């Protein structure tokens, strides 16, 4: 469905559209970019979901900004926390922008109408969150701006409302499957994207001067995840297949408090309000691991401690395989007013009432720190420093890198607003000067071939079985703890799955709403991204942030204070990762903060 006013040209059955700026993805990052770009340039937003279905809406806890509304705070402290939280693999120039522009980003949203919770004086209220501290680690600070435990929902709704206000053109339930590149004056630049329309099966080419990717994460490479079924990393996968490198893919965040067995998230905001993690004997085990900030230590640390408690036999429940999030002392009032949604999740999905009983939790795959490399203007990089003019990425699909090896809670809703806005702004400036690039001949051919090959696939393998085996094995071998053995095993498993993927069958042969076909295409992206993740993880023989190697338990700054850059080279079709992935390094930008030991 589209809200566009112009009609496309149809040539050989392919629909051609023309815009200055095309934004792929209508989550927080995509719509924030659209609000910036829409009034300045002819802009279209293409999304495989209706905008309000995007997973930004699932975010709960808050958005960080040193407003200092409730206690002393400064954006410099926020920068430091972000750098330290990311275990020093953060590009510090980018982190400074994030923390500095955070204040305007929150105010922008409030001015657009976002109903933040308020202080008694009527200002935006703030709460505590993991890793956010006063004066370089002295004590937890109240920095997270929030709207109950549906901050992401309110951000997504507010941005959508403002897109309606500005009359932004949307193409909803259009799946972008390729980016078209044109060579001009010996330089490769993007000239459009190719999309598949769910309702009709029609193929569309969107020719444009600038393209912003804002396609979100890829948590579905794992089984236990807080991510939506639709978070299959299409945008990251498309870039990868086009030869654009992927940065820091080994760093995937496992959020400590997923509902045990289900992965549905319970926000860190619960611990921000005072909830406590306990093991089977009721011990507040985080006191042992992080004596200063305890249950508000960053996520990588808490997730590891939880798994360790379970491995060492202190897990709760009949199988001793989870720990407990105790909210019982917070009282019904706090739970109902500040944490109503997660209270309901526990009641609905586990039949447990957090007011009276502790909730079983275990780490859940949550956030991709890595992704499409960009600079601080959200421009996509072809290598360590070559900009691809006209190509932008923002949000979870991008790697700026403000999160380094471990993202702090509330820094992603911030990231999508700060860098979404930057992408929109810099793309608008770019298209003022740029000419409309010429499309190559038959730009949709690749996608038409892919779709037809899928539709006619009549092998013996089921998409769902391959996906399930991928997800379960990733949970087993590439989760919170990794070793050379587990990663080697996972490499072999992925190789076999890629081989089997060539022999799938699709049941639905129709043109209309063919989700069977799209699930098969999405699985292709998942396999690609899981492969790069594991390949990059094997190569990093140290432990840092979200990447914990049991066989190399220490951080090794001498050899690994660098970003990973993975390149697709050679035979892309080969199921052997080594045949087509080449790894390289990219220096970390250090401005004010020298790496120190990370203690909390």
């Amino acid at each position: 469905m589209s809200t566009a006013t112009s009609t496309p040209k149809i040539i050989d059955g392919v629909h051609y559209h023309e815009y200055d700026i095309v934004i792929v993805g209508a989550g927080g990052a995509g719509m924030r970019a659209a609000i910036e770009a829409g009034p300045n340039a002819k802009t279209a937003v293409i999304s495989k979901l209706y905008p309000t279905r995007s997973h930004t809406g699932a975010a709960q806890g808050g958005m960080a900004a040193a407003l200092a509304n409730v206690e002393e705070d400064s954006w410099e402290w926020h920068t430091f926390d972000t750098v330290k939280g990311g275990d020093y693999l953060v590009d510090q120039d980018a982190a400074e922008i994030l923390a500095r522009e955070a204040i305007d980003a929150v105010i922008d949203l409030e001015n657009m109408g976002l109903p933040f919770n308020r202080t008694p004086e009527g200002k935006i209220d703030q709460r505590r969150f993991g890793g956010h501290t006063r004066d370089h680690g002295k004590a937890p600070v109240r920095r997270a701006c929030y709207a109950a435990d549906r901050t992401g929902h309110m951000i997504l709704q507010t941005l959508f409302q403002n897109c309606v206000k500005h009359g932004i053109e949307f193409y909803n339930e259009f799946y972008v499957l390729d980016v078209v590149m044109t060579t001009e004056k010996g330089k490769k630049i993007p000239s459009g994207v190719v999309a598949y329309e769910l309702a009709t099966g029609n193929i569309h080419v969107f020719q444009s001067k600038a393209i912003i990717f804002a396609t979100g994460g890829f948590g579905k490479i794992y089984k236990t995840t807080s991510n939506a079924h639709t978070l299959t990393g299409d945008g990251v996968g498309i870039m990868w297949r086009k030869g654009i490198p992927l940065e820091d893919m080994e760093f995937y965040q496992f959020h400590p408090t997923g509902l045990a067995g289900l992965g549905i998230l319970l926000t860190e905001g619960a611990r921000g309000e005072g909830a406590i993690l306990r093991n089977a004997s009721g011990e507040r085990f985080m006191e042992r691991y992080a004596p200063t900030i305890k249950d508000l230590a960053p996520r990588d640390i808490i997730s590891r401690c939880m798994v360790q408690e379970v491995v060492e036999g202190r897990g709760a429940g009949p199988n001793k395989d989870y720990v407990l999030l105790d909210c019982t002392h917070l009282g019904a009032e706090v739970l109902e007013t500040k944490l109503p949604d997660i209270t309901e999740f526990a009641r609905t999905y586990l039949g447990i009432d957090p007011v009276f009983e502790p909730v079983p939790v275990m780490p859940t795959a949550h956030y991709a720190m890595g992704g499409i490399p960009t600079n601080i203007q959200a421009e996509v990089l072809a290598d360590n420093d070559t900009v691809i003019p006209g190509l932008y990425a923002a949000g979870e699909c991008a790697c700026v890198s403000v999160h380094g090896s471990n993202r702090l809670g509330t820094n992603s809703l911030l990231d999508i607003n700060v860098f979404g806005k930057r992408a929109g702004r810099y793309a608008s400036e770019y298209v003022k000067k740029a000419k409309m690039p010429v499309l190559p001949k038959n730009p949709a051919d690749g996608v038409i071939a892919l779709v037809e090959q899928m539709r006619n696939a009549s092998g013996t393998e089921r998409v769902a079985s391959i996906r399930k085996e991928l997800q379960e094995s990733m949970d087993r071998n590439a989760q919170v703890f990794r070793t050379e053995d587990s990663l080697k095993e996972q490499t072999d498993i992925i190789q076999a799955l890629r081989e089997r993927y060539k022999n799938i069958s699709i049941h639905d042969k129709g043109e209309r709403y063919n989700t069977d076909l799209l699930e098969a295409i999405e699985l292709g992206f998942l396999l690609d991204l899981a492969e790069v993740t594991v390949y990059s993880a094997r190569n990093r023989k140290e432990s840092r942030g979200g990447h914990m190697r049991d066989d190399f338990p220490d951080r090794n700054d001498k050899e690994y204070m660098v970003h990973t850059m993975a390149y697709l080279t050679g035979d892309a079709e080969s199921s052997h990762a080594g045949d087509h992935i080449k790894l390289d390094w990219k220096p970390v930008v250090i401005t004010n903060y020298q790496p120190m030991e990370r203690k909390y």
Partner: protein
Amino acid sequence: MVTPTPAMPAVQAFTITLNIRRFQPEVDQEARWQSFDVEVYSTDRVLDALHKIKWEQDGTLSFRRSCAHGICGSDAMRINGRNRLACKTLIKDLDITQPIYVEAIKGLPLEKDLIVDMEPFFAAFREVKPFLIANSKPEKGKERIQSIANREIFDDTTKCILCAACTTSCPVFWTDGQYFGPAAIVAAHRFIFDSRDDAAKVRLDILNDKEGVWRCRTTFNCTDACPRGIQVTQAIADVKQAILRGRR
């Protein structure tokens, strides 16, 4: 490595029957019922059962879904005659000695199986000016001030995920597709009662129209259907009051 197993209560597996109202636009002249047997666990949701059918038995079965925990609004459908989200309806809470009936929500054009055309629904939403309209500029770089009490007045209607469960459970909407429907009124309510907004009058005029709030016959279907627990009928009543007496 530890893979957590689902928590209490102990998980049981059983076989249930789903009767699904199918419509394959490229094959079927009209919709038909088809029955599937599927093995599920007590912790499963209706969405899991639909996935099992699609993934293991019939790939042509089509429905929308994304978040799988009641937050994105993709999968409103009629389950045993009631509008609900498939991802928020646990199998164990249904009577599984009988087949479970699943069909698309009513009142919007049926496209395929459980998928309807959502465009008329979003068009009604866009009609009510669902965005903040403020005449005064806030102090530069500062938030507008709003008291906790004023924020509370419209809290309930900010929870809406635009799933359409309410609108498509409304008998007035079924017979009169022009009626804005409860969801659009909820969206208007959210701004009419926001102390920072100055365009209540404009929205109230829109809703005072013949296709507006006065169509509502207070059947409470919408409130029963809302998966976010929004007091939809109350919100409509608030708007009616505001038209008669002015905001607050």
